[in-house]
């Protein structure tokens, strides 16, 4: 009840507006007290007054009435400063210097160091993505937005769904964490996306490398850690409205978020709705093997979708405790290309071309409900962090019932249903016995309960329990030399449930008789796994250059489908056979990172070498089950090497140039596909961008034009059943500006983007639709507005 009242209060209190008379303008500059560099994004707050400092550190507050005013200037990583000024004619411009400090309770490390410095000292290779970057680069899904970071790519299905790939590895080899809890869906599947509302995301930490030490099983290739939202300021109420329109798939999206804090209690809420039609590709027909699919009006038939998300959080903060509970629900429905489902060519009497907005069969529906609680408690020198999570992922995959093999026409369209409950508890204690050590110990517990339904069988139902204990220490050898080392042990039990076909299969016995058998596809099995992971790294800071070296061992427990599947995947024309003898995957990786940053120039390189002892690989064999090719889960040694380089410079005052390149080389060095690469290997790719900021004109503030040119080489390294993918070059353009149509309100941020400017016809090697020769989306004009209030 209290939540209802609170949310009603939250949403009705949006309408407060400030009107002032006899007004003056406060102008000011926020700088770092030590370096005298401008500070961007500082909150400037007074009674009824609000502003945020720009990238040059300046802020302006319009329409301030005469009198004495107090302003509080604050920024994460700095201690707040309060100034009092007399508002009247002939006011001087205000300069506020903030001292660096980070005594925010939400940061576990309480050591008076800036975020940037902490990242430099932390030996693991991480990349922090800010809200500003997310806003500026926003694409159709969170992962497509993050694709602009070197080393990060995606596996897409259609325009609305994509899953993370880090340095060429994805699926269950990349962990997605939100509010400290691992996001658990059906991430093993080819055609599954990521059920996270990208508008509810502020900061993302990306780890490109093995991170099992902190994140446990599955963090073998990397982590996408969506961090807890920043704490609202005391006695504040703010919100934003995001509007998005796109012309390629006729998308419209709206998202509204609000957050408020009294003194100790704070609240947030967000609602998001997106609806899009079929997306357009720059071709009027698709040639897949010998088939030709004519497209109506360039629409990729039945790829429309919609998404409705809601989240609400309530929290409490006092001197030594901070606790926030977040409820969120993501609900999505996405159509799949109608002419071929997977690799299977389909005819249908459904009139798909009647509308480009309807979602007909085949489609899927997914609902992801999540409750998390994050509590941090300070007890003396200890900082205790508790993360508690419950998630329910309910997915239904629907398609027109069609007989296959010995399976008669199924009764309904519910092909596969997955319902997964995940309970997680993480406890972590950070302790600084003295100035030089930062010792963290912790335990992670997780229980999964995965149920299946529908007439199609792919993976068995299972329960899984895992527990991991870890300890790591960050040791300051010298002011500029830090060592990070840790050890972890994990234990897991997987209990798979048996499954029998619902229809009989004709079996010709050796004595000439024929029997009709309900085939068993999965067995009741209990398997247990244990694994040690470890990491050791050094970080050395020399003036403006940071060097890092890190050696890590990570692991991944085999999944239920890898162990126990024994069934037909008709859409992929294959029979998938699990292997109960699989070992946990273990991987050793050596990472180097160098970063050199000055005001005018920055350069970075992060090469890596990686060795998998036993990569789990779905190997296409040369045998059939009935008339479908048998694919078997096998393990092979894999060697990988690659990395990213990046450089950026400010040539003229307002012109910034960026360049980055990424490359991964993969080889299976044993097993049936020795000398072949791994599936979905990303090709060599470079991204060049230039942005120019113009002078303010009319009501456009900080207008900026950005061009973004991606050059990707051909991918000739393939493994069955892939095809070679040609290289491509794509140009994207963007214009962004702050609009201040009304002097009294905060500026509206506007972004106009033109993706694939030349409507280039190209293929993305790691797109799911690549297998059926569907090119990437054509030209897309999108306009987004962010209206703060």
């Amino acid at each position, binding site marked *: 009840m209290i939540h209802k009242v609170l949310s009603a209060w939250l949403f009705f209190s949006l309408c407060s507006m400030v009107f002032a008379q006899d007004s003056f303008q406060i102008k000011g500059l926020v700088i770092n007290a030590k370096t005298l560099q401008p500070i961007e994004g500082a909150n400037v707050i007074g009674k009824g007054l609000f502003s945020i400092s720009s990238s040059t550190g300046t802020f302006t507050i319009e329409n301030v009435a005469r009198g004495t005013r107090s302003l509080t200037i604050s920024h994460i990583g700095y201690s707040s400063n309060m100034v009092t000024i007399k508002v009247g004619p002939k006011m001087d411009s205000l300069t506020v210097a903030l001292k660096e400090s980070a005594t925010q309770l939400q940061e576990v490390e309480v050591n008076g160091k800036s975020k940037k410095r902490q990242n430099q000292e932390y030996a693991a290779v991480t990349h922090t993505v800010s809200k500003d970057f997310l806003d500026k680069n926003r694409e159709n899904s969170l992962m497509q937005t993050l694709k602009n970071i070197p080393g990060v790519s995606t596996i897409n299905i259609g325009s609305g769904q994509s899953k993370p790939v880090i340095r060429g590895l994805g699926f269950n080899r990349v962990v997605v964490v939100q509010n400290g809890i691992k996001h658990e869906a059906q991430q093993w599947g080819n055609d599954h996306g990521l059920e996270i509302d990208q508008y509810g995301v502020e900061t993302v930490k990306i780890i490109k490398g093995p991170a099992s030490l902190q994140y446990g099983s599955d963090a073998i290739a990397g982590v996408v850690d969506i961090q807890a939202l920043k704490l609202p300021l005391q006695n504040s109420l703010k919100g934003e409205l995001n509007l998005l329109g796109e012309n390629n798939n006729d998308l419209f999206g709206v998202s509204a978020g609000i957050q408020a804090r009294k003194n100790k209690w704070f609240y947030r809420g967000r609602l998001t709705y997106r609806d899009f039609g079929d997306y357009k590709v720059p071709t009027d027909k698709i040639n897949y*093997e010998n088939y030709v699919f004519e497209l109506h009006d360039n629409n990729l038939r039945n790829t429309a979708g919609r998404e409705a998300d809601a989240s609400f959080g309530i929290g409490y903060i006092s001197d030594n405790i901070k606790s926030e509970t977040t409820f969120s629900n993501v609900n999505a429905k996405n159509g799949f290309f109608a002419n071929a489902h997977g690799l299977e060519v389909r005819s249908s*009497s459904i009139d798909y071309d009647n509308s480009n907005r309807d979602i007909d069969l085949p489609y899927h529906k997914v609902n992801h409900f999540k409750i998390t609680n994050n509590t941090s408690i300070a007890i003396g020198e200890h900082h205790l962090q508790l993360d508690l999570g419950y998630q329910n992922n309910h997915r239904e995959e629907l398609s027109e019932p069609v007989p296959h093999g010995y399976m008669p026409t199924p009764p309904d369209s519910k092909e596969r249903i997955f319902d997964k409950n995940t309970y997680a508890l993480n406890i972590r204690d950070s302790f600084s016995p003295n100035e030089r050590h930062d010792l963290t110990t912790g335990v992670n517990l997780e229980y999964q309960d995965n149920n299946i339904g529908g007439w199609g069988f792919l993976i068995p139902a299972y329960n899984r329990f895992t527990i991991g204990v870890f300890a790591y220490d960050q040791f300051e050898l010298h002011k500029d030399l830090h060592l990070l080392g840790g050890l972890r042990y994990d234990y897991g039990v997987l209990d798979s449930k048996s499954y029998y076909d619902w229809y009989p299969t004709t079996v010709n016995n050796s004595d000439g008789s024929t029997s009709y058998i309900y085939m068993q596809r999965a067995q009741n099995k209990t398997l247990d796994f244990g694994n040690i992971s470890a990491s050791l790294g050094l970080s050395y800071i*020399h003036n403006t250059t940071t060097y890092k070296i890190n050696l890590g061992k990570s692991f991944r427990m085999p999944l239920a489908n890898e162990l126990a599947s024994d069934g037909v995947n008709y859409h992929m024309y294959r029979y998938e056979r699990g292997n109960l003898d699989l070992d946990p995957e273990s991987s050793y990786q050596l990472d180097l990172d160098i970063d050199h940053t000055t005001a005018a120039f920055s350069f970075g390189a992060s*090469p890596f070498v990686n060795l998998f002892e036993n990569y789990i690989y779905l190997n296409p064999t040369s045998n*059939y089950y009935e*008339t479908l090719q048998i694919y078997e889960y096998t393990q092979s040694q894999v060697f990988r090497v690659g990395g990213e380089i990046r450089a950026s410079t400010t040539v003229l005052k307002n012109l910034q140039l960026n360049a980055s390149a990424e490359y991964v080389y993969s080889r299976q060095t044993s097993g049936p596909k020795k000398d072949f690469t791994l599936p979905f290997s990303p090709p060599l790719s470079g991204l060049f961008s230039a942005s120019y900021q113009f002078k303010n004109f009319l009501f456009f503030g900080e207008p900026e034009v950005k061009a973004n040119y991606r050059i990707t080489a051909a991918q000739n390294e393939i493994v069955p059943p892939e095809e070679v993918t040609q290289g491509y070059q794509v140009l994207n353009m963007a214009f962004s500006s702050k609009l201040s149509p009304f002097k009294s309100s905060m500026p509206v941020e506007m972004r106009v983007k033109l993706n694939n400017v030349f409507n280039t016809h190209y293929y993305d090697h790691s797109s799911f639709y690549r297998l059926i020769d569907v090119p990437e989306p054509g030209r897309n004009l999108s306009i987004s507005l962010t209206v703060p209030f």
Partner: protein
Amino acid sequence: MSFSTKYIFILFLSLVFTSCTTDDNTKKDEQKPTISINYDEGFPQGCSQLVRGETYSFRAMVTDDVELASYSLDIHHNFDHHTHDDQEGSCSLDPKKTATDPWIFIENYSIEDGLTTYEINLSLTIPNDIDTGDYHCSFSVIDETGWQSRTSVDIKIIE
């Protein structure tokens, strides 16, 4: 200082990148096998009408650059018009109907070792007690490496 380290790093990086492209000489099989019924003896041809009780030779030509491994033949009904073939021209289909006792033929066979060309030749008698109507007949072949090729043809089974 920083400039020299930068160049050392670029050098190091290029070394890493180039050193790993030397073992590409290993010959890998990256070719799919081929499969076709588009030759004089290929059977059945698109839109063929097959008579119940008669015996036919189902023939398709398969080739591979390295070595063929196995093939399969799948004949199932298309009374619900759920699929279509990959042949030129489209066949006229009978009205949709519900299957009562459709013919299902699902078999796979291995090809003797060492062959790069092979003609699939299966002699099949169409059972007398099955539903007549539209059927879908699909051949597939896999090579030694695990590459697969498929071809399919729409046929009709009549009285």
